[in-house]
């Protein structure tokens, strides 16, 4: 390391400690500490177990886990919810989500969910799948499950790589994107183009609500939360499959800092995978939803 670089680091360290001192000594800080009464503005949903997660720093999985469990708590359906998490980074989801869950083989989550939902039609069933799982090895199950209109929620985390096996090319890897198995960038003449799953499955009559969201900034997180909440709630209607695609990040395998990975979503991912609703329920369907009330089993 050069002398110049060292000086820079020292300066930066000094700046940070000065800023911290300033904050501690400021009036604002004192006022906060002296306040007598607090109001709870945020807490962990009780449907999420209070344990450390294994996810890499900055990874979207932990956030999406929380959003789903918040939705379950807000809808009051913890007793009636069964989740399915297949092979992938989220295979341990049952260590975090405080609902009954089944781990599934790679690609088979929607078949497993079909088995559960057909026999327990009054329960809320969701799957939580990655892009390799849902769009490569499990694409047949994905399409046929949705084509049957299975009345479940599919949460699809699309981060364009195989995360758990450390960064191989996925069916949703962007054209030209480098991964460990496309080290020179995804060559579309060899591997074809990223599959736009939401657009694909929205063509099937069995899909009821299809949306693509992200969680790389506050506004996006709020929209995703709303989408999950709606999608779970729609199960009451028994109208077909709800599909919430979430553009996730993968700082570790994208070889980026978490912040860089969030920017990459805005700069690159959304160009191939535009955010927004792809298929919405009709007004008549929603009217029916209001009639069923909020807390009934679906």
């Amino acid at each position: 390391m050069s002398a110049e670089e060292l000086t820079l680091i020292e300066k930066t360290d000094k700046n940070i400690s000065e800023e911290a001192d300033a904050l501690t000594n400021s009036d604002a800080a004192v006022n906060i500490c002296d306040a007598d009464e607090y109001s709870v503005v945020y807490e962990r949903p009780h449907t999420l177990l209070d344990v450390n997660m294994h996810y890499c720093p900055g990874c979207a999985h932990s956030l999406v886990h929380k959003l789903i469990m918040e939705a379950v708590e807000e809808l009051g359906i913890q007793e009636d919810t069964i989740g399915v998490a297949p092979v992938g980074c989220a295979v341990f989801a049952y260590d975090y989500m405080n609902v009954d869950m089944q781990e599934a083989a790679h690609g088979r989550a929607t078949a497993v969910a079909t088995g559960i939902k057909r026999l327990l039609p009054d329960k809320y069933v969701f799957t939580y799948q990655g892009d390799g799982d849902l769009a490569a090895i499990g694409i047949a199950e994905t399409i046929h499950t949705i084509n049957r209109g299975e009345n479940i929620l599919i949460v699809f985390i699309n981060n364009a790589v195989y995360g758990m096996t450390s960064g191989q090319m996925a069916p949703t890897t962007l054209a030209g994107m480098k991964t460990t198995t496309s080290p020179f960038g995804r060559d579309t003449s060899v591997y074809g183009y990223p599959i736009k799953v939401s657009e694909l499955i929205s063509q099937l009559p069995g899909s009821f609500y299809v949306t693509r969201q992200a969680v790389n900034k506050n506004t996006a997180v709020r929209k995703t939360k709303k989408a999950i909440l709606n999608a779970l709630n729609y199960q009451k209607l028994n109208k077909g499959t709800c599909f919430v695609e979430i553009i996730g990040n993968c700082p570790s395998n994208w070889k980026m800092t978490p912040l860089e990975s969030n920017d990459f979503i805005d700069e690159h991912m959304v160009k191939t995978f535009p955010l927004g609703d792809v298929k919405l329920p009709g007004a008549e369907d929603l009217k029916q939803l209001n009639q069923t009330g909020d807390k009934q089993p679906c």
Partner: protein
Amino acid sequence: METKLMKGNEALAEAAIQAGCDAYFGYPITPQSEVLEYLAREIPKYSTKEHIRVVLQAESEIASINMVYGAAGAGFRVMTSSSSPGISLMQEGISYIAGAELPCLIVNVNRAGPGLGTIQPGQGDYFQATKGGGHGDYKLIVLAPSSVQEMADFVFLGFDLADKYRNPVMILSDGAIGQMMEKVTFGKYNVHKTEKPWATTGKPESRGRNYITSLHIQPEKLEVHNLKLIEKYKEIEKNEVRYEEIMTEDAEYIFVAYGLSARICHKAAIIAREKGIKAGMFRPVTLFPFPSKRLNELAETAKLFLTAELNSGQMVEDVRLAVNGKVNVEFYGRLGGMVPNPEEIVNKLENLISKENVS
């Protein structure tokens, strides 16, 4: 009690309904498509709002077995059926089911292979059925029917054993037993359904969450799980061995065969007796647990075992392990969907006896 003339596959399907099967998931394949057809027609008649019963044609055998996983994990009495190539496709799912200890019934109406092979009967899936089949260390309980009556009976038995041990049970039949028509009597069995407090039915406040998994990422924990499975298999070996013996009391020459081959060997033993040869037949009914102990006892007095199979020699290895050199174990097999007649097998025995006398 009701006696009907039925195809093996249809008797099995009817038994599934009577045994309280909540759900059947399957995919068409010859020679067992009648199971799905029969249930597609009959199960909806029994489905009510209070007791939902499901029949679903899946998009593949892979999907079928994973639907079985999901429904079994939710605590229901579930089954699937297929034939050899389809059972190969299910092996991954079966391994997961065994690992997650889910009770279910899997039926293989064995045809001849390898590959697409043919739709005629075969017993080439013996190793696959009894030695695991998929990846990892596990066992299925394997029942081998040799009549249409047993196609029905073993559905009741299979579901009960699956629930008792939280283990997948396989009925290993073949294209002939599945397709032939015979008399079958229903109404002999009571349906026993067990409580499944481990099932994922939705978590009430009164208990912690239930989860179904075959994943134990820490080696220390997986080894404990593996040892637990082995203990269970030992328990099954202790309690559940089933076999049938025909004219073995004074037999010097014993045919060892299961399923369709056992029917042929039964006749072969009768023909041999008529010729003055003291022949008998031993039929393993459970292929796992294998009736090794009884075979070993019979080896004390018999001069020769002749194992006959519709493959190139699979169960014969278990027979040899069972007798551990006490007696000569010979093999006769037909392949490719070809089925031997009893005379062929008697000829083989006579040849072996004459060789024995020469030496």
